[in-house]
């Protein structure tokens, strides 16, 4: 039987190679060498431009049957990252080490904490949820927007259904605000076809296809005519033709979710090591042996690689790189809460031809009552490129504005970018490595990684079981996250009672979001303590309102300093090297005098 499988694999490797060579030739990539092994395409050689590097990666990634593309093609100016040095001191031992405390890593940690296992969760940043997880659109997608038959679709459909339970257990915000998927006069405007035909397509064909798709996936959706749409959304453009309503589309808060997951995991015995960067992996006799970090090494039998944008580099450390991450940035604009009532559902519209691997973004509600427009999709060279360009701002404001012609677009309060960890096969890559036992890939978690995260965690647990991890359920697992108090959400009687119990609830520190001092102190002394201004912001929303911290920053700095003993001038915005201040007043004058 084994022979049969190997035979087939070899056969398909050959086929893939043939196709890849053909594609490369056809597109003029003569200097690219191609190898295929176990249905993974390995590219080496040289091209002239970064764009060509992307192109050959995508072209080979599209070939049927390809599991992964490792793109080591060189181009002028390609940056090489230096790996940090590790420390040769044992700092722990675990059954499973999870790398990366984004929503995915934290979910896996929490899922594994249901069993009697020693688990260590490693994160290089000073807080959880500092990677892609903090900068996305917070949509709990149903899966309707994903390519049919992909793993990401399957897990998204499943994950979405798990959100009710997880949000209740962990006490985090989750709202099924519903989504309207619209066709408008813009939908087919790129095609030269008579308007009665495009109208017909927009009115009947597109909704029909969407609803049929939903049925296949078990997602309830209904067609809505123009008149009803305008009743549901009075501010909508009169150019709307038709739409499909997906009532179960949800929104959540990705960092509160991730923090709650991590806190709950820690509550149930997981060791979370922050400020700990993985720099190497020891493999012995084809099995993982230990994880090397900049603080020391950890002995372990299993490694879960959920390092987001860096998953390819982590896999490389174990010698099992089977994919290359090519970062894709997405920028989003957030509007003042004042605009929050402008729409009643999240809204998106279809535009053809569609940009590949892109759901198209839209105008979306948030659990906090703001409205967001976006995101964009832009290939970037640098995994840390979270800049929002002038072109992106302009594009977003223009692209969506026809949906809501009178929206007060001047009420922007912030914009940000996140980076998607895409592979060239443009799908999640979740499996146990066949080459190195005990190494589990959880890579390529681009959108809808947040929505899919509960299902990803479940899948990883199953894989670990299959790989021989002995798992016994804990009797005393506590599934519940604690109730985080948000003063602004309480009624006056509740507020009175709180202030009576703890006077600091009575002192409002962030005026825009009505955050009290007690909430900030609570965040500082939380299970996962918040020492930076942004970590406090993620937990309490202080500084997320319209003045963007202009008013509360000095106060928060002095509270952090008071509670932790860190001198105020040493307090950071968001982790190492993000010092807020250059020193105490007069310090430059003293320098000069010295």
């Amino acid at each position, binding site marked *: 039987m084994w022979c049969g499988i190997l035979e087939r694999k070899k056969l398909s490797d050959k086929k893939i190679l043939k196709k890849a060579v053909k594609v490369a030739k056809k597109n003029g990539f003569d200097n690219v060498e191609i190898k295929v092994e176990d249905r993974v395409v390995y590219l080496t050689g040289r091209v002239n431009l970064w764009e060509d590097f992307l192109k050959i990666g995508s072209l080979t990634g599209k070939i049927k049957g390809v599991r992964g593309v490792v793109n080591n093609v060189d181009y002028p100016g390609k940056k090489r990252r230096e790996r940090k040095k590790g420390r040769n001191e044992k700092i722990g031992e675990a059954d499973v080490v999870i790398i990366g405390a984004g929503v995915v890593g934290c979910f896996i940690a929490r899922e594994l904490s249901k069993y009697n296992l020693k688990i260590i969760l490693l994160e290089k940043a000073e807080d959880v949820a500092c990677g892609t997880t903090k900068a996305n659109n917070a949509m709990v997608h149903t899966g309707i927007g994903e390519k049919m038959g992909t793993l990401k679709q399957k897990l998204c459909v499943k994950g979405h259904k798990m959100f009710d339970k997880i949000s209740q257990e962990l006490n985090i915000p989750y709202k099924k605000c519903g989504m309207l998927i619209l066709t408008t006069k813009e939908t087919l405007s790129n095609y030269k076809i008579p308007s009665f035909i495009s109208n017909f397509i927009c009115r009947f064909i597109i909704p029909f296809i969407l609803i049929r798709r939903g049925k296949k996936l078990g997602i309830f959706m209904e067609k809505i005519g123009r008149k009803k749409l305008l009743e549901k959304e009075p501010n909508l453009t009169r150019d709307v033709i038709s739409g499909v309503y997906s009532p179960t589309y949800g929104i959540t808060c990705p960092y509160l979710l991730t923090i709650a997951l991590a806190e709950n995991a820690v509550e149930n015995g997981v060791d979370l090591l922050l400020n700990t960067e993985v720099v190497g992996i020891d493999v012995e006799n084809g099995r993982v042996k230990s994880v090397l970090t900049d603080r020391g090494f950890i002995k372990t039998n299993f490694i879960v690689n959920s390092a987001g944008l860096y998953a390819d580099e982590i896999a490389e450390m174990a010698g099992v790189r089977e994919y290359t991450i090519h970062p894709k940035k997405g920028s989003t604009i957030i509007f003042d809460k004042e605009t929050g009532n402008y729409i009643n559902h999240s809204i998106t519209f279809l535009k053809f031809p569609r940009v590949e691997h892109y759901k198209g973004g839209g105008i979306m509600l948030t659990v906090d009552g703001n409205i967001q427009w976006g995101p964009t999709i832009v290939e970037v060279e640098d995994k840390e490129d979270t800049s929002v360009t002038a072109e992106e701002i302009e594009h977003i404001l223009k692209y969506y504005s026809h949906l809501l012609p009178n929206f007060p677009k001047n009420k*922007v309060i912030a914009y940000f970018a996140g980076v998607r960890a895409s592979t060239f096969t443009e799908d999640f890559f979740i499996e146990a490595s066949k080459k190195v036992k005990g190494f589990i890939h959880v890579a390529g978690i681009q959108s809808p990684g947040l929505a899919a995260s509960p299902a990803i965690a479940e899948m990883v647990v199953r894989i670990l079981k299959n790989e021989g991890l002995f798992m016994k359920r804990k009797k005393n697992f506590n599934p519940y996250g604690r109730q985080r108090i948000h003063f602004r959400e309480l009624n006056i009687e509740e507020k009175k009672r709180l*202030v009576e119990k703890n006077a600091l609830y009575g002192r409002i520190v962030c005026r825009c979001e009505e955050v009290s001092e007690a909430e900030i102190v609570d965040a500082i002394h939380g299970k996962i303590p918040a020492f930076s201004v942004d970590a406090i912001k993620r937990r309490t929303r202080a500084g997320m309102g*319209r003045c963007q911290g202009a008013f509360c920053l000095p106060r928060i700095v002095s509270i952090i300093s008071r509670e932790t003993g860190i001198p105020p001038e040493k307090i950071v915005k968001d982790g190492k090297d993000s010092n807020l201040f250059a020193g105490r007043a007069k310090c430059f004058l003293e320098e000069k005098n010295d």
Partner: protein
Amino acid sequence: MIEKDIAVIGGGPAGMASALKASENADVIILERNEELGGILPQCIHDGFGNFIFNRSVTGPEYAQHFINEIEEKEVDVRTDTTVLSIDENKKIIASNPDGILEIKAKAIILAMGCRERTRNQILIPGTRPAGIYTAGTAQRLINVEALMPGKRVVILGSGDVGLIMARRFALEGAYVEGVYEIMPFPGGLIRNVVQCLEDYGIPLHLSHTVINISGRKRLDGVTVARVDEKLKPVKGSERFIPCDCLILAVGLIPENELSKKIGLDIDKRTLGVIVDEGMETSVPGIFACGNVVHVHDIVDDVTISAERAGEGALKYIRKGYAHNEEIRVIPGKNVRYVVPQILRRKDFDKITFYFRVVKEEKNVSIKISDENDVIFERRERVVTPSEMIKVEIHSSLIYERSAKQLRIDVIGDE
């Protein structure tokens, strides 16, 4: 439930002046969210305050202290460390402080919440979001009150008075101020400040320039500036990268009107402040406003004077009330950006002061106030600039005697 004649929200110069006036004849409470009275003044340690009121220039803290002393003398009920959370149309106020949640019922309310600063997001500067970007007022508080230096190599965007004063402040602290950049072809602040804050310290002022990109991952490592054309769009090829660890934004103040909006007060699209009449009463009877919630003032003395009017207005209201019937609209005409008050309600004040700003600088102009038929007031002025508020005080009888429905203010140049 605390019952008061008049509740004042905000204890800056506006709140204090209105409260002092009102307390001459009523039971007044001041609610201030900071730990001390004075509003923005305690952090303004430069001088230039009080030229009209005291006939000499004092610092911000000194100016504030004068009024704080008077408030103490008059034993006005002051609650500091107290944030007002909401106000309803029945003039019930909910406020919060560490002692508890206060419910206050007032016969009249005076809003004096001041203003807040425009951020980099509101002017859509592209780039990253590192540490090291501060609005000027925040930087001022950090240096002057918290004794913390926001940065060492500083670029300042915006040449309003606040930006200019901060440039000097950084220079005095030994930081290197690379320059002040101003998108308009003229400085936003007073000429006096350009000389005293920039020229005296050798700090260059780059007019018709703006910041078009922010870079740096964790801490700011530089900004890109560019020249702008007449349409204020960046000129290709004029970009220049400036390494710096600090960007100070002095790009405008916006009246703080979240509470006002919740009550549903009418807001002026031009000032972004609440609309008031000659007695500083808003669109809801019994709710008054003064200071920077109405429009942004450059000189605190004007705040104090107009705030006294609000105090007076509130006193008159609780004594006899006003019906909001007959209204005269005040319309900004030629070369006038906005006018306050925006409406007149024929109240019994002897004099009415109009505060307004021009759109563009002009020399040798005449300021005209007219109704539907005639010019009822005219005054000559040598220079008018957008950065300096113009005041015109006239006898109310001049207006009330007429049956005007509308007044217009024009600033007309001599061709």
